[in-house]
């Protein structure tokens, strides 16, 4: 294989990632007034997350946790192949509505984030944004091998291997892909955790914010968003 030596290795592309959409710019308003727009400040809030302590009265907290457990609103973000099993889950065969599970189209109103399998780096960025927009308390249910240790795509250059490095995870469901039954079991586990007061990962995220951010920034090259995007 002496020929191989002759092959010139292309140098790594040095790219700058600047989206003009997010750059500071001067804008003339309809009334002719000029003003500066800084989307990174204006479109987002970059306030750091805070720890929200549970209610100090145990009985109240227990009651609230019961309500939280019985009303799981799922963010309808199909991140990977596992999302195909969310359809059957919410339709006649399995009818998860019976168990208080309901899809919501906006992260603001969701409590449960189902990471349905592999996450491409590009999706991870959106997942982080969506996760951060979800209100505290929030729970993450990770489906399938891919979120645990890379699964099928352990050697792919574009999918992450371990989800818990980037956002805290409450429960993992084994399978590739997990069946709706397994997903329901995942919800049951989540309910158990919430009722026991063990699902406080939103606070964990706030506490270890720097660690999570460092991990996230390590692989997302085109960051282009404030550190915390409310």
């Amino acid at each position, binding site marked *: 294989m002496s020929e191989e030596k002759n092959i010139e290795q292309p140098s790594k592309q040095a790219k700058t990632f600047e989206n003009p959409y997010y750059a500071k710019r001067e804008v003339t308003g309809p009334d002719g007034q000029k003003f500066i727009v800084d989307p990174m400040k204006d479109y987002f809030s970059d306030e750091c997350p805070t720890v929200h302590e549970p209610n100090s009265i145990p009985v109240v907290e227990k009651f609230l946790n019961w309500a939280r457990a019985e009303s799981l609103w799922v963010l309808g973000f*199909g991140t990977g*192949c596992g999302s195909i*099993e969310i359809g059957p889950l919410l339709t006649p065969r399995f009818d998860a509505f019976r168990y208080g599970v309901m899809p919501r189209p906006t992260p603001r109103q969701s409590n449960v984030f189902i990471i349905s399998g592999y996450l491409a780096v590009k999706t991870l960025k959106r997942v982080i944004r969506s996760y951060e927009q979800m209100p505290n308390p929030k729970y993450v249910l990770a489906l399938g091998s891919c979120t645990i240790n890379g699964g099928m795509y352990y050697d792919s250059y574009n999918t992450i291997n371990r989800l818990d490095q980037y956002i805290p995870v409450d429960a993992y469901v084994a399978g*590739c892909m997990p069946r709706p039954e397994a997903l329901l079991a995942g919800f049951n586990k989540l309910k158990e955790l919430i009722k026991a007061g063990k699902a406080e990962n939103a606070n964990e995220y706030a506490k270890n914010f720097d660690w999570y951010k460092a991990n996230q920034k390590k692989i997302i090259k085109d960051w282009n968003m404030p550190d915390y995007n409310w």
Partner: protein
Amino acid sequence: MSLFNIDTDRSKYPQPGEDGKLVVDLDSHKYVKLWQGPNHPGVTGNMALELTLAGDEIVQAKTHVGYLHRGFEKLIERRLFIQGMQTSIRMCVAEPDTNEYVYCQCVEELSGIEIPEMAKWIRTLVLEMSRLQSFLRVVPGQGGTTGLGIGVQWGMYMRELILDRFEELTGGRIYHMYFTPGGVRGLLPDGFKKRMEESLIEIDDFVKRIDDVMYSNAVFKKRTVDVAVLDPRWVDKYGIVGPVARSAGFKRDVRKDYPYLIYNQLDFEAIIMNHSDIYNRSRVRWYELQQSVDLIRQIMAKMPDKGDFKAPTPNVLHWEIPKGEAYVRAESSRGEYGLYMVTDGSDKPRRVNLRGPSYTQAVCLLEDMLVGANIADVHSIMVSLQTCPPEIER
């Protein structure tokens, strides 16, 4: 040709500037930039549309994909031929068996293996079942995009019945991993035909109902008829295949044109319509759903009961295939689905390239078709083209 009288006047839309790019001055306050997706129920799967709106109307659309990119084609270059089977299947999650088939067929063609008769029948059966379950999702799904939820509910239940049959036959619910280079991984279980027939009877009933509730629905018609009409000239320009091309009057069906497996022993005709709006595209799929049911019945009636289902292959752990290249196509529910495989004599493929119908339909066709559409129709249009992001980016 008055039917295809498309409004080609785009003078009110952004015009190309000197460098050929459209000038959309967001700061002029004439346009709004809106991202639909990836976290949005109104896109099919995990993809995003960057829409520029003037009011409710889209003046510019860009498709953004890559949210599901796993680098399959790179990964398969690292996989043995037997291992590529379960990697390739995951390229499209909505209808995985076609992936399996084209992959296995490529390997078989390049290595010169002829699969046994029984395997051909079972493969055809599985492919048709796979088309059927995909149609059961997408046909009522077209109603779902406009808010008709009950069709989706029924359809998903019917799909569950097919998935049950799949589970029984193949051992998997969604990813069947049932074809292996050389044949399939088992015969039909006992009583399968009977249970299949029971499921098909339920589906027959569903077909009628969905016609009453969806295709005869005044509001549904209002939302879909004459919306997002496909110019027949676009079919070749964009490389449109499958039901979308057929609804525009192009009789293109891989099963008829390039018969594979045992499709030439089955009795069916390609379904065509001659005005491709959302309604007709969905209607073609509805007819094909019935056709699939019929084909499954034909297959089950004609197929032999017993037989070899796998041809002997070399030891799969070090199976080397001589240098060559092959392009194999099959008809999926979305149309022609092809795999281009190049081998170099080693035990791993040199290059695998998948050509799914969405590659053109969801990128360049969608980008052009959305211009002038109402944003409320974006999801309908995407579903009517059956865009599937994982097969675009793989």
